[in-house]
């Protein structure tokens, strides 16, 4: 009886052993997809489907509301590439590009300094990152007061005895510079945090070894930190370039694109919602997407993303 029972047990367990790996393998195959369902659904519904929609609209003359729309082939694209006034707005991106260079340099500087042992470093980290957490619309309004005639900037300057009487948003150059400045203030924190994270992932022994070899702070930065954060640096550059090409929030809220501050995205929004040329605007958005992809590709070709090996 006992023997039979034993046998049965063995049999069943043997059977289970055969079944288990098959089922387990199947489950192992399915599990990642189960986890992916939620993000993939969100991604497809809210990112790829609208993009597909937009690409479809870019071949039509849809006005945004009318139930009727007509297939117009590549007409919208022809119009975009033959109208130089639509591309002139990219000059404005130059201001933001220059600003992002300043921004990356400043972020790198602060990240390096605050990665060393500095007093109140957590406080300064907070101060630098804080602007990134504020809503862009709020920033727009705050800075509208800031740049007002006799506003915050003017009062602060007059404390130092400088009375400029300068209309900060008054001319195209001044307005774009001011707006780019706001954008530096806003996004500095993000770059800073990215750099800081990368710097802190560099093993501490390296600094000690370097110090023993007589390296100063600059040497440490040049030969340890800079190569160590190269991947993050190149990512930041890509983000800055695509960000500069697609600036929207701050100029839209603050000037609405007046006084030569119109960016490509503001122009696209105006085409779509002001002049009801949704088809043309969709094509413009597709063109912007392609330009950004192209810039990224060129940049990746020029600066290949090598594996960094510090140790």
């Amino acid at each position: 009886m006992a023997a039979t029972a034993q046998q049965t047990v063995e049999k069943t367990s043997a059977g289970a052993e055969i079944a288990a790996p098959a089922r387990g393998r199947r489950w192992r195959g399915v599990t990642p997809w189960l986890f992916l369902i939620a993000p993939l659904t969100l991604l497809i519904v809210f990112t790829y489907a609208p993009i597909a929609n937009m690409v479809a609209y870019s071949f039509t003359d849809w006005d945004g509301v009318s139930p009727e729309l007509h297939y117009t082939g590549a007409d919208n694209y022809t119009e975009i590439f033959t109208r130089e006034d639509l591309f002139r707005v990219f000059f404005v991106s130059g201001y933001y590009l220059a600003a992002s260079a300043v921004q990356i340099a400043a972020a790198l500087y602060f990240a390096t300094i605050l990665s060393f042992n500095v007093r109140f470093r957590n406080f300064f980290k907070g101060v630098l990152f804080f602007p990134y957490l504020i809503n862009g619309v709020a920033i727009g309004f705050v800075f509208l007061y800031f740049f007002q005639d006799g506003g915050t900037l003017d009062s602060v300057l007059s404390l130092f005895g400088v009375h400029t009487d300068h209309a900060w948003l008054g001319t195209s150059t001044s307005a774009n510079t001011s707006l780019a400045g706001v954008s530096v203030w806003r996004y500095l924190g993000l770059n800073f945090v990215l750099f800081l994270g990368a710097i802190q992932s560099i093993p501490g022994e390296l600094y000690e070894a370097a110090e023993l070899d007589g390296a100063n702070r600059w040497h440490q930065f040049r030969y340890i930190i800079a190569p160590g954060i190269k991947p993050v640096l190149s990512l930041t550059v890509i983000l800055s370039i695509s960000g500069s090409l697609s600036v929207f929030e701050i100029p839209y809220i603050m000037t609405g694109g007046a006084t030569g501050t119109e960016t490509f995205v503001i122009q696209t929004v105006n085409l779509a919602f002001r002049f009801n040329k949704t088809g043309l605007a969709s094509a413009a958005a597709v063109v912007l997407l392609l330009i950004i992809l192209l810039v990224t590709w060129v940049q990746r070709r020029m600066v290949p993303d090598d594996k960094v090996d510090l140790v």
Partner: protein
Amino acid sequence: MYRRTVLAMVTGAALLLSACTGTGGSSKGADAKAPTDPAKVSGTIKVLTVRTDLVQDGTMDKYAAEFNKTYPKVKVEFEALTNYESEVKIRMNTENYGDVLLIPAVIKKADYPKFFASLGTVEERGEKYRFTDFTTVDGKVYGQSPVGVTPGFIYNKRVWREAGVTEWPTTSAEFLTALKAIKSKTDAVPYYTNFAAGWTLTSWTYVNGSVHCDPQATTKLAEGDPWAENADLRVGDTLLHDIVKQGLAEKDPTTTNWEESKPRTAKGEIATQWLGTWAIVQFQDAAKKAGVNPDDIGFMPFPAQTDGKFCAAVAPTTTRPSTSTPSTRTPPAPGSTGSRTSPVTTRTIWRSPRSRTPRCPRCCSLTRTRA
């Protein structure tokens, strides 16, 4: 519409091949006939409106009660939208845009029959109501404007008096002279562009018709050149240009503030702004809040006379601008109402008989406020 969107999501190519689809349904441009026995009509109608204030303070419920006197079995629901124009624009693509609504400015007139039911022919409507031609497509009327406004200058009477100007200027040149007098004799900013808000500048388009007292001004826009010598828009734009060029506007137009400009005008820090009758009430409110005399807020027409008379074009609020401006700054103000095919006709609520359409600018302004 919904079907089309889904289709486009699945495959863009399919959309392109079948690029022309309709909203569906047989209700396209149908007539909203008044039922013979109102007491028997039942159901629910939803009304979309910009007037959040009137929904909150219960005024709309009074309208509904009035409506229910004729249609006792119909339930009226109101939905007030703060960001009306942009929200309704999106909703026009669905089936969910209420039964009675203000026609969003974005919808092309020719498309009215696709979205709305007709209220009647232009002949029968025109007898009783004003502004019917603004919503007429192929002889049928698709909407009714509840309010008419005229454009003009809001000005501070006290400041103008202090500057020694007591008569309304009759030409652009006289107007500029008056502003110069204000600049030299008072501390006020003679003219405030409200440049940053943007839509305030758009009001200058409504000089159309007032300059030469021409009821056919819009036809001239369609057929002629609006910026030809002595054309209405050119006259208006030239005046605006000269005001700014001669330093009679605020120092830094790029950082103007619409909300602040109201109390500042009331207090006499700003002398003049080109707006419309709809603004009077708001400026008077601002005056009361600032503790100054609301009677100082004056209103004058465009400085041009035809046959020795000033002229002001009364228009429904339909043409009021500002689609897709940031909602935080300016609530969009679309105009006349349209009705979709619904179990009942919607005339009662939005009726604005000719006799009741206010004739003087001051009365018009009472009917709408702008936040």
